[in-house]
C-alpha cells in the first residue's frame, strides 16, 4: 500500500521534471522528495526517461521531394484550366522560395559567421546532452545573474528573466570559442533554448541595436537543423540556439531587453 503523499507526488513527477508545476505544488513536491527515497528513485528514472525521449526519438524531416509535392498541391494562385500555366506557376513559386532561402542565408552568413554558428550549435548540443544542463536552477533572473559573479570576468547583460512562453530553467558557465560564456537555458514547451553571452572582442558578429532587436530584426541563421541568432550588442556577443521554429527564436530575441 503506497502512502497517499507518495501517490500524489508520483502523479506530478512528469510535470515536475517539465517545470510545469505551479510554485506551491512544486514546493510541496520538493519537500516530499527530500524525505522519500522511493519517490526520489522514481524522479531520477523520470528524468532519465524524459531526456532519452527528448534526445533519442528521431524526427525524420520531410524530404525535398515531399515538400515539392506539397507545394505543387497548392496549385496556381488563380483559377486556371491550363496545365502548362499551373506547372509554370508552381515552378516559379518553388524557384522564388529557393532564391529567397539562399538570399536569406547569404544576408546573415559569412564564412567567419558560419564558423560561429557551428560553434553555437555545438555548444547548444553540449547543453542538451549534459548530465546537468544547468548549474544554477532558476528562481528568476535575479537569482541566476548574481550566480555568475566571480565565475566570469564580465557581467552578462540580459534583462529578460523568462515568462510563460519562455520559462528560464537556469544557467551555467560554458565556453564559446576561446572564452567563457554565461549560458542561460530557456524552455519553449519541451524544446531547450540556449542563450550564450560572451565578450565579443575579435569575433565577427553583426551589430544589432536594442531597437532592431525589439523590432524582430535579429539575424537568423542555422546549421544541422538548429536555428540560431548571433549578434553583437555593445561589448558583448549573444548566441541564441534551438530547434524551435525561427519565428519563435526571433520572438525570444525581441524580449531579451538589452
Amino acid at each position, binding site marked *: 500500500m503506497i502512502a497517499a503523499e507518495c501517490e500524489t507526488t508520483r*502523479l506530478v513527477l*512528469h510535470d515536475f521534471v517539465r517545470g510545469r508545476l505551479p510554485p506551491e505544488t512544486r514546493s510541496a513536491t520538493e519537500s516530499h522528495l527530500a524525505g522519500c527515497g*522511493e519517490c526520489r*528513485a*522514481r524522479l*531520477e*528514472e*523520470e528524468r*532519465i*526517461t524524459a531526456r*532519452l*525521449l*527528448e534526445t*533519442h*526519438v*528521431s*524526427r*525524420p*524531416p*520531410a*524530404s525535398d521531394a*515531399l*515538400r515539392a*509535392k*506539397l*507545394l505543387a*498541391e*497548392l*496549385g*496556381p*494562385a*488563380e*483559377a*486556371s*484550366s491550363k496545365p502548362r500555366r*499551373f506547372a509554370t506557376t508552381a515552378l516559379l513559386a518553388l524557384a522564388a522560395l529557393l532564391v529567397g532561402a539562399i538570399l536569406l542565408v547569404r544576408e546573415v552568413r559569412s564564412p567567419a559567421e558560419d564558423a560561429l554558428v557551428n560553434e553555437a550549435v555545438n555548444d547548444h548540443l553540449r547543453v542538451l546532452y549534459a548530465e546537468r544542463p544547468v548549474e544554477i536552477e532558476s528562481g528568476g533572473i535575479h537569482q541566476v545573474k548574481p550566480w555568475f559573479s566571480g565565475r566570469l570576468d564580465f557581467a552578462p547583460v540580459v534583462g529578460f528573466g523568462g515568462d*510563460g*512562453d519562455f520559462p528560464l530553467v537556469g544557467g551555467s558557465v560554458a565556453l564559446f570559442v576561446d572564452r567563457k560564456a554565461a549560458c542561460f537555458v530557456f524552455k*519553449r*514547451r*519541451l*524544446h531547450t533554448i540556449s542563450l550564450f553571452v560572451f565578450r565579443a572582442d575579435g569575433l565577427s558578429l553583426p551589430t544589432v541595436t536594442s531597437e532592431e532587436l525589439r523590432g524582430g530584426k535579429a539575424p537568423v541563421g542555422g546549421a544541422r537543423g538548429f536555428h540560431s541568432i548571433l549578434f553583437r550588442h555593445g561589448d558583448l556577443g549573444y548566441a541564441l540556439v534551438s530547434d524551435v*521554429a525561427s*519565428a*519563435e527564436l526571433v*520572438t525570444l530575441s525581441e524580449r531579451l531587453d538589452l
Partner: protein
Amino acid sequence: MSQGSSVRAFPRLPGPVGAGARLCYSETMERKGRSPASRALGLAALEHADALHAFAWHLTRNPTRAEDLVQDTFARCLAASDQFLPSGNLKGWLFRILRNAFIDGVRREARNPARGASEVPEPSDDEISGEPLRSDPELERLRHLVAKDIEAALGALSVDARTVVLLDLEGFTETEIADVMGCPRGTVKSRLGRARALLRERLREYAR
C-alpha cells in the same frame, strides 16, 4: 505570441472519407485553383511539414506511408481551409487532421486484412509492475540506452499511447493534446500517465 499558445477548439474537419479521398481532393483543387487565403494557409502549413512528417513516421513506422499521410493531411487542410480561423492554432489543427487521416487509413485496412493492419493491444494494468529501477548500475544502463531501444519501446505502445507521448514530446499542452485527440483534458492526463508508465516499463526491460 506563437500559434501554440493560442488555445481554442479546432474547427470541424472534413468528414470521414474513404479510400482514394486524397486523389479526389487533389483533382478537384487542380481544376479549380486556389484562393489567395487557401494558398496562404497552405504556405503556413508547409512550415510544419517536418513536424508533421516526424509524427506521421512514428505513427506509421513506414517511410512511404508517412509521406502519403502528410500529403493526405495537406490536401484535407486545403480542402477545409475556409473552416480555419487565422487566430487559430494551425499546428494543432494540422496534427488533428493527420491523426484523423491515419485513423481513417487504419479503419480502411481493418476492412481489408490482406494489407495487414497491426494495432498493438494495450497491456493490462497487471503488466505494469510500477517497480522502479533502484540500483545505480540499472539507472546507469537506462541512461545509456540507444535510440534503437527507445524507438522500439515507443513503437511497441498502442497508437493512442504513442500519440499522446509524441504530442507531449512535441510540446503540446494537455489542452492542445485534448483538442488534437478529440477527448477531454482529464482523459489526456490519465492516458499520458499510463502511456509513460508503459514506456518506462518497457525501458526497464532493456535496462535490467
